[in-house]
């Protein structure tokens, strides 16, 4: 299953949550995966969604880093 995270295609396992797509994205980029829990995530319409949303429900997501890390 593929979904776009900040415009990058990320392949995740069937049954994955948005959290898993973000973890994979961070791991690919060599970023600290522990930051994922603090992200604010939006669907393609710009609505906020949570990290436990099913990835299969979203074709594309975007995230914002918190202002203070």
């Amino acid at each position, binding site marked *: *299953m593929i979904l776009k995270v900040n415009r990058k295609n*990320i*392949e*995740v*396992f*069937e*049954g*994955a*949550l948005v*959290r*898993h*797509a973000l*973890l*994979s994205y*961070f*791991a*690919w980029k060599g970023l600290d*995966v522990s930051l994922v829990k603090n992200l604010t995530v939006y*669907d393609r*319409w710009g*609505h*906020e*969604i*949570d990290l*436990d*949303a*099913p990835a*299969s*429900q*979203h*074709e594309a997501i975007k995230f914002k880093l918190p202002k203070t890390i």
Partner: protein
Amino acid sequence: MKKNLFLSLLMFATLTASAQERRELHILSANDMHAAIEQFPRLGYVADSLRALYPDLLILSGGDNRSGDPVNDMFEIPAYPMVALMNQVGFHATVVGNHEFDSNQYGLARLIDLSTFPTLCANMEPDPKFNMHVKPYQIFDCGGIRVGVLGVTALGSMGTPESHPARLTDIKFSDPLETIQKYQFLREKCDVVLLLSHLGYDDDVKFSAELPWVDIIVGGHSHTQLDGGELHNGILITQNSKSLKYATHSTLVLEDNKIVEKKAERIAVAGAGEVNKTLVALLNYFSENPAFKRVLAVAETPFVCNEELGCMVCDAYIAETGAELSYQNAGGVRIESHEAGDMTVGDVMKMDPFQNDAIELHVTGKELSEMLIACYDNDKQRFPYVGGMTCEITTNPADSKITKLIIFDKDGKKLNLKKTYKVVSNSYSVAVSPTKRGDEGHSLGITTPDMIKNYLEHQGRVSYEGRRCLKLITK
């Protein structure tokens, strides 16, 4: 004087008539509550307050009521606390979400029987042997307004809800939109038609173009946080993110039995505020969950380090799934040791508190090797524990990067790097091991603590004294 009296009476009659013609339907809805039992005292207070203003308040759930808190999900009757709390709040109906199947067909049937509200889903037909009392729709009389509530749930790529296939056998599922269209007769029978949807926001919007006879869609599944509601093709759509951070109060105004206004506002549930004290008492009762003290197995010898526990977790993955190999991120084993003696449900929850799903993959030895290294790199340079194999890991002392990894099978021979193996891990470990491989894997629809719990129950007695699966070399 007579003229004034006549005018007063006329005005009173006019006001009364217009009051009869203008009516309001009020709905409080939540979705994807995922066992957020700690929010129920607040939700109860919100419901009580709205009910005081609007006695005919309709309270609905957009599905996925359970799965998210072990206090609920590991209760003696799994997920019963949520049902009891929803009964107490006064829910009128829920739709079946994919997580409602998490304690299998019989578990769901039992929960439905314990609910004081109907469970709706038009696009599922369980075999009669389950005695599962799911209804397609229910018509409610809300202060003289007839409200038809039709339930429908999402189907994944397999044509079934996203759950373990074994929990869905002998239940027929049908296409959501085709099914919904069969219930168009509700338009004739009711003043308001409400679709209680566990389809997700995208489908709710898409379907709204096909459903001009529906007035409102109370949604769930995609955890989409709307600012109250949105109008799409004239249909009011509502949904919130998970765990009862918010609920939605929708208002439909009817004049001469026609809807003239639709609006929705979100209400913050999470956080401090007034609470319903009966629900506090009920929550306290459930929180002292005796199921947590249940003994699953006896540890014949103490677990003296994290690695021995990690080996046991990996053995559980293999024994409970028939996998050949397994791995588990080291950071996911949250206790360092355990005394010899009883191992309880509570011990498992402390050991693995994250409610990760078990993931099955079919990967070659080489692909697995790359996944283990990626997991190491992304899990604070801690090598994952493994089952069905042992690993010899050489790292560079300068940057702790792995310079060499040798994997041995259970017979002590080097793992065949070309052979494909059935591997099971947890969802976190797989997510932080994003390598290029032939199979991304799929969820088995069971959480890893459940798997460990089952393993201990099946074993009865365990001993991992001196067991090691990793050999670390620094040079």
